[in-house]
């Protein structure tokens, strides 16, 4: 049995988890070209090495991020998404959002 360490529930059987794809930066849906959007949806980083992925602990519906080596299957680190996405400001006005996305793209 392979063990995955959930940041919320501790070490559990990996069968309790659902893989949710790589962590990717989403382009602004309103501004992105079709090609940029297609790239975001269909393409993943396919190099052999450490990848950053979404995982969910199914019994508790808890999503988190794992850093895993995609050849050795070694999980280096798991952590709560707030570590990456803790910078969101709220409540943001519509004009702020527009400005942010313009900077991103």
């Amino acid at each position, binding site marked *: *049995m*392979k063990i995955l360490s959930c940041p919320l529930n501790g070490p559990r059987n*990996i*069968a309790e988890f*659902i*893989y949710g794809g790589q962590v990717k930066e989403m382009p602004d849906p309103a501004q992105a070209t*079709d*090609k940029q959007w*297609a*790239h975001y*949806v*269909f*393409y*993943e980083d*396919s*190099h*052999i090495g450490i990848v950053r*992925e979404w995982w969910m602990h199914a019994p508790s519906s808890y999503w988190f991020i794992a850093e895993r080596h*995609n*050849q*050795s*299957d070694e999980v280096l680190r798991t952590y709560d998404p707030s570590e990456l996405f803790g910078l969101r400001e709220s409540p943001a006005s519509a004009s702020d959002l527009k400005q942010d996305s313009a900077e991103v793209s």
Partner: protein
Amino acid sequence: MPQASALKPAYDVVIIGGGGHGVATAYYLAKYHGITNVAVLEKAYLGGGNTARNTAVIRSNYLTPQGVRFYSESVKLFERLSNEFDFNIMYSQRGQLTLAHTDATVRAFRQRAEVNKHFGGRTELIDPVDIGELVPTLNLSPAGLPVLAGLWHQDGATARHDAVAWGYAKGATQRGVELHQLTEVTGIEVEAGRVTGVQTNRGRVSAGCVVQAVAGHSAELAQLAGFQIPIVAYPLQAMVTQPVKPFLNPLVSSSALHCYVQQTSRGEIVFGGGSDPYPLYGTRSTLELKESLMASAVEMFPFMSEMRLMRQWAGITDMTSDYSPIMGLSPVENYYLDAGWGTWGFKATPISGVTMAQLIASGGKVPELIAPFSLDRFDAFRQVNEMGATAASH
């Protein structure tokens, strides 16, 4: 088969990957187009990758018209390969039966049967009584899921997968193609958007054009050529039991249990399932998958609980998001793609060889049969959603 000696400094065509698809492409280039200054570069040995790891199912009962047209041609080519090679590939047309356990699956099967018939395949929906007669040893309520109907595909077949690669390699090398084993491509040279050669562990060769026909590392190889392809590598596990007396003629799979079972001509039972639950560039086997696959196989054929497992293995499948291959042109001029073969590569071996050879011989004019599978379909949101694929949920 003549042993290739030193690499020549230049070839008209360099094919990366000495599996079924690579040698089939070389074979048809030599046979139909008179192009024989061809090198097939294989990092390990002939047919030692996914050609040796698949479960050798040949069928065309897919869902999309594009898919069915393509795989039907392949099935027809398989039928006469032994004669063509003068070498027995142990082709055996026993029919393939897929079981439906829900109304939704029955509806999907009805559609697949109609599409398949429309394109000349032999596929029909049969009821549980017919299924019982066809496969008397089958449990008609596996895991508490009653069998409602079956998709009976008479064209379904199996063959010895190694022999397919050997037959193509024999025919290709007899016509002057060079097969270089233990030759790994380590770099791809692109000048002004056009491929000019490849670097290997045995030195550099110039190439008029290059074809990538590898499985498991397609996306990595494309990166060497400087572009990305939308493929994610997932392991697919399978296993085989000790041999027993013949009892099972058709290839049987259950859509709900994600398990397919067949008896080889040697008497062993080969069974496999869907891809692993998460991506990995590895061929390790897991206890979880072994347990669940064996449980499903025993549910389908209860007396299998008395049998012993002989071997298990895995292959790395290049999965695309629409379960269709990626064939044809690439962003690099004269660099052609034969990739994204997920769980549907073996059955496509002959027709991939034919169409890739046409593509190369015409200098990049894409044959109509593979046009739907172009790389740019993803950018244009023009996917070929092939839900008849083995790893797809039905």
